[in-house]
């Protein structure tokens, strides 16, 4: 009885470890392709394929994640600073229900692209292991930076990485 318990425990832990380690998107990897609907019903779908040659900053966020809400206005400033030099910011909202994300956007208008991923399909593809998570994709389609968590002092490092990877 006891033995079987431990066996189950061991197997369970191993399975969860394997799931946890499966194909996390890392620096140097090609970015997973995506095409997902915008959070705004009246706007077209957002696809990585539509941004060839651009530097794309992909961020996963939710309205219940406090550090995410701190980061978004700072990303908005960054976007407006570098958009003319080829920067796109794609902030994927994982709120479910979507209304929670929309409510936040009512008070905090953001200029960049905001797709909605309520079922976490994209989050699964990127194998997001914490909220928020962001991925800097270079013009060559490869991941240049993986950043997990957010504290305001991180902006310096993120801006430097973006500048270093802007299209020529």
């Amino acid at each position, binding site marked *: 009885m006891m033995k079987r318990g431990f066996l189950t425990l061991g197997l369970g832990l191993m399975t969860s470890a394997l799931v946890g380690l499966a194909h996390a998107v*890392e620096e140097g990897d090609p970015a997973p392709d995506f095409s997902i609907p915008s959070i705004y019903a009246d706007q077209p779908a957002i696809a990585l394929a539509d941004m060839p040659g651009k530097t794309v900053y992909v961020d996963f966020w939710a309205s219940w994640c406090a550090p995410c809400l701190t980061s978004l206005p700072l990303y908005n400033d960054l976007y407006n600073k570098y958009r003319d030099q080829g920067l796109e910011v794609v902030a994927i909202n994982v709120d479910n229900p979507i209304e929670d994300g929309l409510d936040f956007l009512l008070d905090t208008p953001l200029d960049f692209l905001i797709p909605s991923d309520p079922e976490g399909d994209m989050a699964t593809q990127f194998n997001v292991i914490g909220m928020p998570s962001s991925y800097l994709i270079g013009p060559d389609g490869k991941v240049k930076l*993986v950043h997990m*968590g957010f504290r305001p002092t991180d902006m310096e490092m993120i801006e430097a990485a973006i500048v270093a990877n802007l299209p020529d």
Partner: protein
Amino acid sequence: MKKPASRSLIALSTSALALPGIAEADAPPLTSSLSYKISNYQEDDLSREQVPFGELERYDIDVHQFQFVSPLGRDYALFIDANHENMSGASPWFSTAGSNGQPVINMSGASGIYDSRSEVSLGVRYYGARGNIGGAIGYSEENDYRAKYVSMSGSRNFNNDLTTLTVSLSHSDDSIFPSDAERFNRVRHENKQASSVAVSLSQVLNPVASFQTALSLTGQSGYLSDPYKLQDSRPDGKTQIAFSNSLRYFFIKADGALQSDYRYYRDDFGIRSHTLDLSWFQNVTRSFKIVPMLRYYSQSAADFYTNIDDFLKPLSESQSSDYRLSAFGAVSGGLSFVTDFGGWSATLTAERYVANEKYSAFTVAQPSPGLVQFTRLSLGVNYAF
């Protein structure tokens, strides 16, 4: 400055920056916050049947609590707590048999007791990739009591941050120097120490539920008696164990959450107890919550509890008529209103507590005539900036 992609370094950097999935759980707070809470609680007066002579009025206590929390650099947080409380009233002094043989209480000092307590504590916590560790020191002073304490605790997350193990340790060094010691032949200066260790394990069960189980062990030694009671003599050591289980469950349809906490306690004074705490957090609007609370508590009596002091018994033998060592049950109910606006939040709480031997889950051999009923009102405000 082009950054080469080195796999080993990346693995390290991702893990070093990984926040647990439950945002904020293991990051220092993003903003500073200042909280203040003022509370008043008033114990019901005793009746003439319980107290044939003298004061009927029990304690009336005002409590002020301040807390300041601030991020400190990228990975640390600072906690400063300050409390002050004022109390006035009287407390049971000794217990005798009344004319009908039932125990009656004699209250301390006809003029009543006025006392205040001030406490400060300072804590620092480090937040790492998979957990946090921190410590605090504190100091509390009354005109007849002083406590100095230190505590440390560390948490580590496992299993994609769905499991958290926390270990905490604390030690307190207290001095007791009763007022009017000479006049009433009380002890002049005594000490006591308390050390405790607690281990807790929390587990996310599903997207709307998590569970925590904890075990705490406390050892006390030194002067554990009540110096103000006429005939109070307790052992000079005590070991306590508490086993707690907590559940948090969110009901999506109802837009509310249930908090349920149960604790089983026992010590070698012979006291066992059950505590069940239930709170329902009902979201009414995005910024307004109503929180009804219900608590049930019951304890068995200490082995040496007596409801009529035996003045012939030598003090070398343990005895106490402290109502807190009797067998009883207590029911309390409360209601809180919580509202948020901008960086502000405010909480208004009212609570009623009624202890009675009839509510006891344990056998009551000797009911105490001094059980407490009280009403509490609190107003708390919090400002984040």
